[in-house]
């Protein structure tokens, strides 16, 4: 009873913290400009060790030297994936909605040495349809905002 009485006395107030940002992509600006304007994926290559980074890095994390831009085809292979039946987060201001289940995947883009975390969509999203080894290709959205959600991947049927 004592506990119940205490809880009844608790007062709760709403609070919302809003911070607007206009942030710079710095030396990787080219990646998002090419995504937005030219539907073209780019990676960066280290001139010293040759590692190709995607997501791109303006400096190689192994050699600390500035990297060079290299274009990618937008095709790749799924290294691992999971079917997600739970959506809680996501950016409110994005126009793109995640239908359940959506498939989160680590994709090795052709020509890159790192895994790229992204989403794969398929019409039926049948469990097991997308798996390690599945070939995928990029699909561009309209309109594009210069964000990582401006594109997604679908199974590559070879057409």
């Amino acid at each position: 009873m004592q506990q119940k009485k205490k809880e009844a006395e608790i007062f709760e107030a709403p609070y919302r913290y809003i911070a607007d940002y206009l942030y710079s992509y710095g030396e990787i600006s080219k990646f998002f400009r090419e995504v937005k304007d030219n539907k073209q994926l780019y990676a960066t290559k280290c001139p010293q060790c040759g590692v190709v980074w995607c997501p791109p890095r303006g400096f190689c994390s192994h050699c600390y030297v500035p990297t060079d831009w290299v274009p990618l085809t937008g095709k790749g292979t799924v290294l691992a994936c999971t079917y997600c039946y739970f959506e809680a987060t996501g950016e409110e201001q994005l126009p793109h909605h995640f239908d359940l289940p959506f498939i989160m995947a680590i994709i090795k883009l052709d020509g890159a040495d790192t895994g790229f975390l992204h989403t794969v969509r398929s019409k039926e999203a049948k469990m097991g349809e997308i798996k390690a080894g599945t070939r995928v290709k990029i699909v561009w959205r309209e309109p594009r905002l210069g964000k990582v959600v401006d594109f997604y991947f679908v199974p590559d049927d070879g057409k």
Partner: protein
Amino acid sequence: MRRVAIVGVGQLPFRSRRPDRIYQSLTLEAVKAALEDARLTKEDIELIIYSIYGEVMLKQQIPHTYVHDYLGMEGKPSYSIKAGGASDGYALFAAYCHVASGANDLVMLVGFQKSQDLYSSQTRSRGDGFLKGGAIGFDITWQMPISPGGVPALLTVSCLNPHIQRFGGPTPEQIAKVSVKNHRNALVNPNAQLKMDLTVEDVLNSRIIASPTTMYECCLYSDCASALILASEEKAKQITDKPVWITGIGLANWHQPRLEVESLGRMKGLELAAQRAYKMAGIKNPLKELDLVELHDFISGVEIMAYEEMGFCPIGAGGRLVDEGVVEKGGLLPVNVSGGRVACGHAPGVSGISSAGDVVLQLQERAGERQVPIKKGRGLVECIDGDATTNSVIILERKS
């Protein structure tokens, strides 16, 4: 380096929400419990190190300064350590270093976190509010916009599933058995948040969150605080006849989301952290030289991966330890006797401090109904980040 002991434990129950406490008073209760346990007063403490995971969740920048004031610790120095979900382990390392170096004789380590003050007005759910607020921990440019499934999905796709592909296990049944074990262990832990006697079928048939991870294989979120008091050898012997010594401590970062192809399906940072802790403590065969382990089962599948990375068995053989009952409460090496994060509860930055407290109580044989037999006098605490980016392993011993 001087020897360092834990001489006081302050634990609070894990609860999904504590609307009856502000974070300052929640912390005070844990601090008070630790001081009482060590029969010390706040005047005896020279320095406080705070472990804080998320300021967004506390709706407050530099929250430790407000807590420090509330605790009446004016004049004493304090700072906070942030290392993601392993803030607790990293903060323990900092506290250890203060005493081991001779800079301080009595240091308090305090973790506090509220998770469920966050609220989604869209879905009217505190859980959704928390997951959304917590998503700011993801890389804002590359991960957050495409990770609406939260950490369970990220951990499943970057660790568990590539592991299953590379090494052929663990199986869904083995993962579910770990969840069942931890829920069963929580039944006799008064601090546990969720008390459910589950079967393997219950776990496998619960909602899929991110395949193959099901709802009962995902950790809870809690409002909680916890404290420990660390002392130099001279002070420790004055305070207690049952000091528990920190004899090994290892940390390692391995940025999992970098996803370099060759490390997929492994938690290389955890392997390194464990090797460092074992080297320091002189442990050759952890499976046979430890009495118990408390570890971060953010999802149950990762508990099995942790057995492997910490050398309890070869990589890929963790599922066998589950099938053979090795990690059960009555087994050779009980793991998560407290109930783990899936059943005891999880307040990031606090859980590891509470886990270290659990191992201390076990080694001192005052863990009540959840007590396991202590034959080797040694336990292990593992605290890692949700995606295994920050990793810490701590070895505790009751005599040496």
